[in-house]
């Protein structure tokens, strides 16, 4: 498991350290303290062979273009938009052979890119003559992955006409899988079906049903059913016909997605933004309980965010009875302009909740 994480110059974090992390870590705090940024930072290390880190900054905020032009494309991931500083994300693990991993991201001004789309005005002109066709100019972003202080993978991300291009030397795919779930309410049924299928092909899908039974005791089994070129996870709840799990309710639908993510990320990490979205507070206890059980079974680390007091209280209840050590709650506070984590063990969050203290 990741024991600690240090983040420098990444989005909301100028210099941030969090230790320890648990098997399941719930992160709270006010708006704009970096809860989602923490998930982005962890995912970036796992997903280092994809420029998704950049694109997520825009897609997550509803942008399908880069405000300010291509030369500004890298700004959103740098703290205070300071592209002259290097981003560093450092993990420490609880195993000696995998002790330290670091992802460095920095602007590389010696690796400039200038893209002129086909169809541009190719008439001879001076270098300072403005063209009437769009040009994209940008420096490259270097993404350097190192393990135990040895650089083992270097990528250059550049702007391409229809997106981003990533060129990687010494490609080293992360053997540990990761999955990130946004805070949106509706599950991606096609992705659910794909994850279920990847488990089913290895005869590993049956245990998924058991994790959902607390929320739907009638559930006897799950299966993927194809309709044309689309596939959907259906459940057998003893009715005349099987029913798409998505139609059984938001709670069970969200839990299915979370359990599938955990089950397909054995030995990896699952990151869940705004975990309580679409779930009634009364269902959260069972959801936490089953997330905890699944995280143990698949040796998966889960980091989730929340704004909800009820969600935190439900986690306390869900992890009671033998799973207390697997859970911690972290609130991110803004103190003198810096983001500071306050780490509650299971015991200390229990006391705080029992005393009706504010913990969000």
């Amino acid at each position, binding site marked *: 498991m990741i024991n600690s994480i240090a983040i420098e110059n990444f989005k909301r974090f100028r210099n941030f350290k969090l230790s320890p992390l648990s098997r399941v870590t719930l992160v709270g705090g006010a708006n704009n303290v970096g809860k989602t940024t923490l998930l982005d930072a962890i995912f970036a290390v796992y997903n280092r062979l994809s420029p998704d880190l950049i694109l997520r900054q825009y897609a997550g905020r509803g942008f399908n273009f880069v405000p300010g032009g291509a030369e500004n494309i890298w700004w959103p991931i740098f703290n205070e938009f300071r592209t002259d500083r290097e981003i560093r994300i450092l993990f420490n693990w609880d195993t000696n052979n995998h002790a330290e991993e670091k992802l460095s991201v920095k602007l590389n001004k010696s690796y400039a890119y200038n893209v002129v789309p086909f169809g541009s005005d190719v008439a001879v002109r001076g270098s300072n003559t403005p063209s009437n066709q769009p040009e994209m100019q940008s420096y490259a972003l270097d993404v350097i992955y190192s393990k135990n202080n040895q650089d083992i993978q270097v990528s250059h991300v550049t702007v391409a006409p229809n997106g981003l291009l990533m060129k990687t030397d010494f490609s080293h795919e992360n053997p540990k899988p990761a999955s990130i779930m946004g805070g949106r309410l509706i599950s991606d049924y096609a992705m659910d079906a794909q994850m279920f299928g990847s488990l089913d092909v290895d005869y590993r899908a049956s245990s998924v049903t058991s994790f959902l039974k607390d929320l739907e005791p009638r559930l006897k089994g799950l299966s993927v059913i194809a309709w044309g070129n689309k596939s959907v996870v259906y459940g057998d709840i003893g009715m005349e016909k099987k029913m798409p799990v998505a139609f059984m309710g938001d709670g069970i639908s969200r839990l299915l997605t979370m359990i599938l993510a955990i089950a397909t990320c054995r030995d990896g990490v699952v990151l869940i933004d705004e975990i309580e979205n679409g779930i009634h507070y009364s269902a959260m206890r069972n959801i936490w309980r089953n997330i905890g059980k699944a995280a143990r079974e698949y040796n998966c680390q889960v980091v989730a965010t929340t704004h909800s007091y009820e969600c935190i209280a439900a986690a306390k209840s869900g992890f009671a009875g033998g799973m207390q050590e697997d859970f911690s709650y972290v609130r991110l506070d803004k103190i003198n302009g810096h983001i500071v984590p*306050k780490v509650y063990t299971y015991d200390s969050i229990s006391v705080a909740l029992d005393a009706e*203290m*504010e913990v969000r």
Partner: protein
Amino acid sequence: MPTTKIEIKKEKLIVVEGIDAKLFFIYALAHLQIDGIQVLSYGGIAELSSYLKALSLSPNYETAKTLLICRDAETDAQAAIQSIRSSLDKNNLPSPGGPFDWADGVKRVGFVLSPGVGSDGGILNGTLEDLCYALLDNKNPIMACVDSFLACAASSGSAIRWPHKSKLHAYFAVTKYVGLKLGEAARAGALDWEKEVFDPYVRMIREM
């Protein structure tokens, strides 16, 4: 689940054991006309040590400058002192040498033990109810009736472990404070805050 949660709102905090003690200090502060002190209760929730740990993680804890801890001496004042000091040590808080004293460090920390200080200057065993009994109007003739009642009960085989606690509630039961708990009686004006026995508390509160 209440919608309003307890937040640290003031720089000076009194941490007490239970809702009665909380009300007791709230009304003592009102009598003393002292603002700027917040009273928090941990009684029935957890050990002091784990409460202080949770408190230290609360939003705005950094803004709290002074902490006064109040608890009962129970049957062994020395054990209570050791217990409080151990809780402070575990939470990296400065630990005063004894009750009704201060230690400075990351925060200013003091503690008091109820019922308080005896006529010989020693720390008394007992509880907050003992202190409250001492704060009642001892010129009220009902006090003699209460004494007689307790004596009668004891002679009839009743094991009275905390005589002052029993006397206090017997007194409430035959006055306008009937049915009230300690904190409620404090709110209703049952206690005389000007009595000398309360002076060490007043001093600590004013020194916060």
